């Protein structure tokens, strides 16, 4: 019983991390129909640059080292995302295949550059004292505190995105843009600027995921591919461009991974893709997606 509860909780904490990363991916796709194959690279860029700021501060035992790493990682990823949209993707808006290929190219270049600058040694953020250690939970017993923080961050991101989309003028523009970009432009809205804002936000979420993820587990080369793949599976299961769908998709994928690893570790990955195949067979637009 305790084992089952622990496996479920592990699944949920992993789902929380997936949600933070994949919601950015889904947001960008929802408005611009851009399948950003470099989303995992944004995760890495955020994490590595944040680590470069974190390490010297941590060595000097500055208590705020980790707290500073979070906004730095988000800002670094956001800047990288904006540069990518402005310099490359903006010129080929509406040409999805070309954008997908260009972002694959970007991800290869970024991965090599990061390897050249930061080397292949895995790194890991150390959570600040307040978030470190374990917490006593009913059923599960002692559980890493930071993993609970992960869930809190995901809930905050979900609520924040919901408020942004439902309550702000930018949210109105994004939702209208998903429906009809030309008409949105005819309403006087500068659509490329909205697209840039969305790209910055989506990339910042990847950067946030990078710092959170690299605190929970080591940061290493190749993580970009893993998080890109997971983001793709999550939004395919949940429904492209839908925030609630991304949440549902993250929980299902996180649980599938952890339950699979508990029951049949060798074939665990099959469960995740089995889930995707099942959803595609029954509801090709994803569980909460709209049909195109």
């Amino acid at each position, binding site marked *: 019983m305790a084992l089952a509860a622990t496996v479920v909780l592990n699944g949920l904490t992993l789902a929380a991390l997936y949600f933070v990363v994949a919601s950015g991916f889904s947001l960008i796709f929802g408005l611009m129909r851009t399948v950003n194959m470099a989303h995992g690279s944004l995760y890495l860029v955020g994490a590595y640059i944040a680590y470069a700021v974190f390490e010297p501060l941590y060595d000097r035992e500055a208590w705020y080292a980790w707290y500073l790493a979070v906004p730095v990682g988000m800002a670094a990823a956001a800047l990288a995302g904006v540069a990518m949209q402005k310099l490359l993707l903006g010129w080929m808006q509406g040409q999805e295949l070309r954008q997908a290929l260009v972002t694959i190219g970007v991800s290869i270049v970024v991965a090599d550059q990061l390897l050249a600058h930061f080397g292949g040694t895995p790194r890991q953020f150390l959570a600040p004292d307040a978030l470190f250690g374990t917490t006593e939970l009913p059923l599960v017993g002692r559980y890493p505190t930071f993993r609970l923080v992960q869930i809190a961050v995901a809930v905050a991101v979900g609520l924040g995105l919901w408020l942004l989309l439902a309550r702000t*003028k930018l949210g*109105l*523009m994004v*939702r*209208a843009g*998903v*429906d*009809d970009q*030309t*008409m*949105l*432009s*005819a*309403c*006087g*809205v*500068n*659509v490329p600027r909205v697209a840039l804002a969305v790209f910055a936000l989506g990339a910042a979420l990847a950067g946030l995921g990078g710092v959170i993820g690299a605190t929970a587990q080591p940061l290493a080369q190749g993580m970009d591919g893993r998080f890109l793949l997971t983001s793709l599976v999550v939004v395919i299961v949940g429904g492209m461009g839908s925030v609630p769908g991304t949440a549902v998709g993250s929980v299902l994928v996180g649980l599938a991974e952890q339950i699979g690893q508990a029951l049949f570790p060798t074939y665990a990955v099959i469960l995740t893709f089995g889930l995707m195949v099942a959803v595609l067979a029954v509801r090709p637009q994803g569980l909460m997606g709209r049909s195109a």
Partner: protein
Amino acid sequence: MLVVRDLHVRFGQAHILQGVDLAVGPEPLAIVGRNGMGKTTLCQAIMGMVAGRGQISLDDTDLAGRAPNRVARAGIALVPQGRRTFPSLTVDEHLRLVDQGPRARWTRARAYETFPRLAERRRNGGTQLSGGEQQMLAIARALLMNPRLVIMDEPSEGLAPVIVDHLAGVLRGLTAEGIGLLLVEQNLRMATAVCDHVAVMVTGRIAATLQATELAGNEDLQRRYLGVAAGHH
């Protein structure tokens, strides 16, 4: 106000607009013509939604080749064919999207006053509205941008006659306010109720500009330019 000179639009091999010349002053102008003559393309070309070649200017601002948002900022609003309201937005959200604050001439409160039906439906989504309600919403959305000129593409399409009459009253009010109007209409009754002058579009050109009374009273002209007499439409 709006001046269009020698405007051409091509889609691949198809030459849709073949040199349109047009001027809309303070007087509203109606454009009539059969389907496929290029009326909707003309609206979209002025708005910058399709690429064209030629001159387009509003007062002294050159608008040729501008993106739709620049054209909108310059003072032209479009009520497009098929309404094109946003399915994801509620009625009130449509209006908030283009709201220019409480000091503007057209405010949300005024839009709800003009179209009480929209006030009742303010929380309903864009897809839960009837055709007539969607049309009112598209018009309210255009007016809240406080344009100097409104282009309306078939606003009476699919509307009940009583709503068409209400709409004609609203449009005459716009003219009285000094807002320019370019009204594309198949419905001759609507066109002549609002505009004194009617331009007839034939194969991508303005073939003639007539007095509304002249066209309304002459079935031969109607057959020639519209393919039907008004009574059958």
